């Protein structure tokens, strides 16, 4: 189990990030990437436990015996989804600055980049990032709170 997790988790995370970035043009996007990232964390969690997430992965000190609600990674998960909501709303508000309706999106194609030749930068990516953060934060919060019981 631990060996599997050791090998699989990085692969899943890379896959999740690539799904997030390519989501606009190929299958993928914030929802899928978020759920997939959660699965990676869940794998670590099932294999090693919540404290390992703090001590081993995130390199923090763990104070044993504290309630789940004070657990630092749980706080971090909650922060993640609040951050995600903030990003999503802010990306929507950004459109207002250009005199567009709330949540309008646009895109530019940047050309002559080495290797990629051209890259499309869509403002929707910011919104998708918000979606991603919310999904990760929410699912991990639920998982860790329920799991701690």
């Amino acid at each position, binding site marked *: 189990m631990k060996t599997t997790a050791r090998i699989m988790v990085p692969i899943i995370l890379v896959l999740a990030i690539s799904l997030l970035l390519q989501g606009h043009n190929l299958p993928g996007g914030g929802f899928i990437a978020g759920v997939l990232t959660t699965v990676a964390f869940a794998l670590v969690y099932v294999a090693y436990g919540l404290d390992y997430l703090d001590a081993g992965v995130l390199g923090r000190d763990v104070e044993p015996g504290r309630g789940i609600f004070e657990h630092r990674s749980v706080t971090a998960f909650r922060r993640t989804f609040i951050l995600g909501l903030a990003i999503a709303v802010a990306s929507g508000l950004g459109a207002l600055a250009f005199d567009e309706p709330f949540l309008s999106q646009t895109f530019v194609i940047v050309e002559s980049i080495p290797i990629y030749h051209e890259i499309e930068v869509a403002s929707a990516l910011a919104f998708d990032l918000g979606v991603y953060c919310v999904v990760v934060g929410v*699912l991990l919060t*639920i998982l860790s709170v*329920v799991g701690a019981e």
Partner: protein
Amino acid sequence: MSVALAFVVGGLFGLGTFLLLRRDLVRVVWGVAVVSQAANVYLISMGGVAPGTHDSVPVLAGHGEPVPETTDPLVQALVLTAIVISFGTTAFALALTYRAYEENETMDVQEWQ
């Protein structure tokens, strides 16, 4: 529309309803889960289910290419959000189940008045 698809949606809704009416709270939560699966399949069927081809996936070949006739992308977008939301509600229902059991010390919904 295909009878098979209709039969499946009807069957899932019926079985889900039966689960919702059980006394065991966990089975009620299963009922919610089954009904949301049924609703998702139903939504997809409203977009029309055609035999899949290379073109029918609503991911286009590239910028500026002609647009092929895809399946309905809107129902897919609806279902995508529905999947994540139904996970949220299922998790919430489970948390409620657990707390209800703790408070009432029974899983029988008929017994809490």
